[in-house]
């Protein structure tokens, strides 16, 4: 009787384990197959893509899409613009978040609480609700259709989150360090730059990479604030140039692949910091 029961238990455990892997594979197929499909389509000729029965692997490898993108020049301009804008925004965001995060972590004045509340409210705002007036304001400042205006606008969007993220990294550094430094007679700025800052480099990396990824993702700011085609960013260029009534899917998928690969590399390279940062930000609230 006892033996029978344990066999039964083992069977259910085995079935449970099997079901677990089955669900896992199913979810991962959903998450990863579209990425594979993008890559494979970029390597197929259009004639092969437009077959009624799709092929799982290209019968004839073709890099024509990539060649067209590189030789027509436009794509590289969008790419360069996007790298420029995102990198500038990431640097600006890091710079601002380090100072503000430090202030919020170390000082607890009444207005800091108010500021945090305002920040979390600001984070909720849909971009479009701001864009209409942002466009009018930037026009008055002569900043529409410039990368500077775009960088400032997209940086402001990320600041509320990155500041509180940075603050949570500073929270992890003992206050005694500053007290000791101030007893030794070092000034506030000296303490911040030479003693505290080196300790939050992982946090700074997390904020920087996160900002780069998030600003790379921007689409709305670019399409409303930027008009000149030679200033377009990647998302904007992809949508406005390549997606039309008759789409060249090999070209689009090649462009998508090129727009994705650097992000994947950046993420995997800085993964350790990113995951730490993301989870710290959310788990802390």
């Amino acid at each position, binding site marked *: 009787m006892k033996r029978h029961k344990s066999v039964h238990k083992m069977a259910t455990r085995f079935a449970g384990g099997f079901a*677990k892997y089955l669900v*896992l594979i199913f979810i*991962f197929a*959903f*998450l*990863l197959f*579209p*990425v594979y499909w*993008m890559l494979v*389509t970029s390597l197929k000729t259009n004639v092969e893509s*437009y*077959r009624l029965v*799709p092929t799982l692997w290209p019968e004839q490898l073709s890099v024509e899409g990539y060649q067209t993108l590189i030789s027509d020049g436009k794509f590289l301009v969008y790419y360069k613009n996007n790298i420029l804008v995102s990198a500038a925004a990431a640097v600006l965001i890091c*710079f*601002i*978040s380090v*100072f503000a995060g430090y202030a*919020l972590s*170390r*000082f607890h*004045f009444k207005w800091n609480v108010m500021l945090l509340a*305002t*920040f979390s409210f*600001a*984070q*909720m705002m*849909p*971009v479009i*609700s*701001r*864009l*209409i*007036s*942002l*466009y*009018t*304001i930037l026009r008055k400042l002569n900043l529409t259709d410039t990368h500077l205006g775009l960088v400032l606008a997209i*940086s*402001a969007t990320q600041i509320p989150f990155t500041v509180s993220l940075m603050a949570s990294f500073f929270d992890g550094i003992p206050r005694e360090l*500053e*007290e000791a430094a101030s*007893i030794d007679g070092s000034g*506030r700025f000296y303490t911040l730059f030479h003693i505290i800052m080196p300790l939050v480099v992982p946090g700074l990396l997390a904020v920087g990479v996160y900002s780069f990824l998030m600003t790379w*993702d921007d*689409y709305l700011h670019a399409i409303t604030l930027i008009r000149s085609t030679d200033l377009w960013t*990647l*998302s904007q260029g*992809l949508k406005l140039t390549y997606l039309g009534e008759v789409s060249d*899917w090999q070209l*689009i998928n090649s462009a*998508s692949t090129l*727009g*994705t690969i650097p992000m*994947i590399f950046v*993420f995997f390279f800085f993964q350790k910091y990113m*995951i730490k940062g*993301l989870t710290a930000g*959310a*788990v802390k*609230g």
Partner: protein
Amino acid sequence: MSGKKKGFNIHSRGVGDRLFCLLLLLPAIILCITFIIIPIINSVWMSFTDYKIANLTQGIPGKWNHFANYIRLWDSGKLQSAAWITIFFVAVTVLLTFIISMTLALILNSNIVGARFWRSVMMIPWVIPTVIAGLLWAWIYANPYGLLQYLVSVFSGGEIADFGILNNQETALWGIIIAALWKQIPLMALLLLSGMQSIPDDMLEAAKIDGANYLNCLFRIIIPHMKSVIAVTVSMCIIENFKQYPLFATLTNGGPSGATTTFAVLSYDEAFVNYNYGSGAAVTTVWLLLMIVVVFIFNRVFKRDDS
């Protein structure tokens, strides 16, 4: 020297501390005020005025127009329809994202082979820019030649031969929901997983020794323990989906016949396609209020559950 010694003591908040703190915060405050706070206030004001392209180019301030923007939007039925579509989209997407992410997190948290590897690879859709995600799904949904159309025709035995998920009023929104799920599951699963990992192991062990089955453990120990993480991630997800625009822009642009016109699409079209900025601002104001109400209710319900 003794003054400096007290510099970082919380109990002696000197003028120096205040100035130092303010100085550090200043860049963030300036940027947020100019690019977020002022635009929001300005946009709410604009929604009560007649503000069109001429006002913008000639710098004429908008004129108060007695709620005409709101009345026109309401009478045309556009506002109500956008509200329902937005709420449906948010509710379904958030619910499904949560269920699938939770399942994924639970699986990754059990002793499976290569959990760390799966966790990293899982993040790929999150890293892909939203517009590219839209293009990627647009290709899968393409009619004709899309993968989905082929799969549907195979599984229906050739009965449904040209299925275009985005061309049909009833299915178009589902097409976007699938793309949104694909993009958002990774981050939520990652956050839920990290919340799960903070549950003490001995607690689950003790429950197992006491004979609790898996579902008991899940609902009595795991979920209650993760309450705050769930609250944060779900409200993040609600906000994220309320704001969703790029997927709509790349996949349907609000069509077919307005079936996927959410607040985001409607306000964008009013402001930047019809150049009626006042009307666009009216849509965003209603949108904003609705979002605040939803997030508020969500947090309330969650808090009440707590006690």
